[in-house]
């Protein structure tokens, strides 16, 4: 318990300087890295024929993002299909078959990192680097770029320009992701994560048998996997393996690094919105109080209420998960096996139930998808928490995307409150009208629509049912989890699911693609629509969105919406399993 609390408190400390640094990069302000990094960036721009000063409107920005991602998908697909012919393949891995390559490449481009292959047998070292590590950088940077453009739109400095996609992409990679990855990569190697290009190691054991041990450029993948909230492991069992995550210290580093940048995103949002309010001549006439509280200065007031709402949702989920796992498995205690350590099936001794449930709650909330224990073996309620958080998809969320989703809910919340008090709703000083509400509603409905309709499809056709490996209610949860993970671009799985088949590869590939790009384009459209409007002056009837009161409203709106859409299916899956387990 104490270690969970301390881990979270220690997370908040680096968040403030890092959030500030990321904000300065997003806002194009001067940072200490400029003298070196400006040269690197300009070399890249020159090489690619990009003019970073040329700003784009939201349509062009979104088009460029999707277009560039499609080019990357094509390049990556070719490498996966040809990996057996290329170099850096000491373990003699064969080429990946078409449906699995399709699934893998979409999975990594969309920041999902759902893996229907196992790294030990599925990928050459060259593919791990040129496809997986590369995608981990660019998918994270693409999501973050979209978020920055979205915030620029909301903060509304100009009436139509949201920035240059290429320059956002490059700046995030060279100034944030690369230096942070090298630093955490070295820390991980120091703790025992391998980083080499040799083939698998075979040793003779003291009992006269042999053991084969996986190795390779693990640390390089491991650091960006968490920093970019990607989550796809070098090995099949991901961060539960002592090769990817050997000690408690690596576990903490991995936890903090995946929480860092999504949190920093909220800081960026708060600060950029705050800037607009304090700078003269930008429309708003709200007088600023002379003294601001500490949190308001760090997060910006609007950022603070969003951060608080996300924090409340996260803590509730974490508490439920930790409690459920500590209870253990009553069926095993019936056999006479003490359950005082909690439910240890699928968990590592070095992490125990506390660090395992914390990691589970974090990976689902920050949509990373890395696991340090097997989610399929979690107790029913413990496993429902990651499932629910992927269904909500707003509890911090992946790089940038979670924040954009949360803003959709924030607009929904001001709309609902507006209906109750009979006023035109406003958010961030702009009137929210019919067009925005249509886009927001569409954006919010896509996620449950993808999850529920594909789950229904999978449990009605034999090809879908063939994947289920656990009997009873848990089988439905396996299917549900797979699509929730795909639609939320999370990537963790109930790994028992036998998912490397044509049906599963194609359907989850489609869900990941639609779940990533449809909401992103719609969200940019909302920003594009809001930025054209004039700022309205605050009156006594304006709903304040910068206090703890609004955070609580937001939490309720998110839960109510989730209950309305997902409660029936949760009742058939994890809740029914829980009731039978403890009956």
């Amino acid at each position, binding site marked *: 318990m104490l*270690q969970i609390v*301390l881990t979270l408190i220690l997370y908040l400390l680096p968040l403030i300087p890092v959030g500030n640094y990321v904000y300065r990069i997003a806002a194009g302000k001067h940072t200490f890295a400029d003298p070196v990094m400006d040269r690197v960036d300009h070399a890249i721009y020159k090489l690619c*024929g*990009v003019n970073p000063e040329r700003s784009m409107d939201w349509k062009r920005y979104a088009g*460029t993002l999707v*277009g*560039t991602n499609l*080019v990357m998908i094509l*390049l990556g697909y070719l490498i996966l299909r040809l990996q057996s012919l290329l170099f850096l393949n000491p373990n003699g891995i064969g080429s990946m078959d078409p449906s699995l390559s399709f699934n893998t490449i979409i999975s990594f481009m969309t920041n999902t990192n759902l893996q229907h292959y*196992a790294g*030990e*047998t599925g990928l050459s070292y060259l593919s791990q680097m*040129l*496809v997986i*590590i*590369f995608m981990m*950088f660019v998918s994270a940077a693409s999501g973050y770029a979209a978020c920055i453009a979205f915030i620029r739109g909301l903060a509304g400095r100009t009436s139509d320009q949201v920035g240059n996609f290429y320059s956002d992409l490059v700046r995030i990679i060279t100034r944030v992701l*690369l230096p942070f990855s*090298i630093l955490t990569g*070295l820390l991980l*190697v120091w703790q*025992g994560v391998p*980083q080499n290009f040799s083939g698998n*190691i075979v040793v*003779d*054991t003291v009992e*006269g*048998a042999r*053991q084969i041990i*996986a*190795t390779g450029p693990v*640390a*390089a993948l491991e650091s*960006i996997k968490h920093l970019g909230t990607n989550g796809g492991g070098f090995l099949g069992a991901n961060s539960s393996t*002592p*090769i990817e995550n050997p000690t*408690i*210290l690596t576990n903490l580093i991995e936890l903090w690094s995946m929480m860092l940048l999504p949190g920093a995103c909220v800081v960026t949002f708060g600060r950029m919105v705050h800037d607009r309010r304090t700078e003269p001549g930008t429309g708003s006439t709200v007088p600023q109080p002379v003294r601001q509280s500490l949190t308001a200065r760090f997060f910006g007031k609007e950022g603070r209420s969003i951060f608080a709402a996300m924090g409340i949702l996260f803590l509730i989920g974490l508490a439920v998960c930790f409690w459920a796992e500590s209870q253990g*498995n009553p*069926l*095993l205690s019936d*056999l*006479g096996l*003490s359950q*005082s*350590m909690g439910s240890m*099936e699928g968990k590592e*001794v*070095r*992490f125990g139930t506390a660090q395992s449930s914390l990691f589970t709650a974090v990976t689902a909330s920050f949509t990373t998808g890395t*696991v340090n224990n*097997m989610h*399929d*073996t979690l107790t*029913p309620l413990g496993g429902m928490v990651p499932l629910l958080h992927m269904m909500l998809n707003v509890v911090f969320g992946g790089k940038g995307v979670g924040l954009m989703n949360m803003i959709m809910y924030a607009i929904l919340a001001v709309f609902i409150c507006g209906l109750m008090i009979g006023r035109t709703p406003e958010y961030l000083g702009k009137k929210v009208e019919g067009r925005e509400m249509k886009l927001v509603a569409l954006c919010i409905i896509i996620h449950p629509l993808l999850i529920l309709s594909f789950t229904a499809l999978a449990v009605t056709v034999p090809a879908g049912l063939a994947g289920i490996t*656990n*009997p009873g*209610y*848990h089988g439905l949860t396996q299917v549900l989890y797979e699509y929730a993970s795909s639609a939320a671009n999370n990537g963790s799985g109930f*790994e028992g699911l036998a998912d490397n088949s044509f049906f599963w590869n194609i359907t989850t590939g489609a869900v990941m693609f639609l779940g990533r790009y449809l909401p992103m384009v719609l969200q940019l459209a909302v920003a594009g629509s809001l930025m054209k409007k004039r700022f309205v002056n605050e009156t006594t009837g304006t709903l304040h969105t910068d206090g703890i009161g609004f955070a609580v409203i937001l939490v309720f709106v998110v839960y109510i919406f989730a209950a309305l859409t997902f409660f029936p299916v949760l009742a058939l899956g994890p809740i029914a399993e829980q009731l039978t387990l403890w009956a």
Partner: protein
Amino acid sequence: MRDTVRDFLRSARQSVSVALVLMLICGFAYPCLLTGLSGVLFPWQANGSLLTVNGQTLGSEHVGQEFVSDCYLWSRPSAYHYNVYTEDENGSRFYLDGSEFAGLASGSENYAPTNPALTERVEQDLADFLEKNPTVKAENIPTDLLTASGSGLDPHISPAAAEVQVPRIAAASGLSEEKVREIIGNNTEGKLLGIFGEETVNVLRVNLELAQEMGVC
């Protein structure tokens, strides 16, 4: 019309070159740089933290191993038997329990808590353990010893799980119980700063010390 085509071609060229340049920087230069740096700064860890006794490599500090003899500390059950196998004269590979070797892998059986296969496996392992450790009562066995880890490669067991095996190891190895406890104690690690993580016993390192003590290697 012509402008649109030219504009499209220009964007396409930019997208392709940005993709290629970033692929080389992130996918090639970065992992190579990290390999170089870690090879210089932490060469032992970068190459897999291999444990060597008298010039012979016997395993990796961070990767668990399966042990079946009574004189060694046993690890937790693993779906892939810690990738430990034997090879017969035909080149066919088998796990130590005689089943076919599945190839290098990691993971668990992914049994849900309600899966009857889980209770069957635990029941079987419990009966086997009690038979080989007649002095132990079922309720004294810590749950980690009979449940599978997530990775199937867990290098640790809890100190309590090591303690229940001490009488068996002492009887089979000819070492005193105090000596066995001392070796286990040497390879037990506490929580980080007394707060984070759990207390762990590294099974492989205990067994390498036991083997040296018995004069096996």
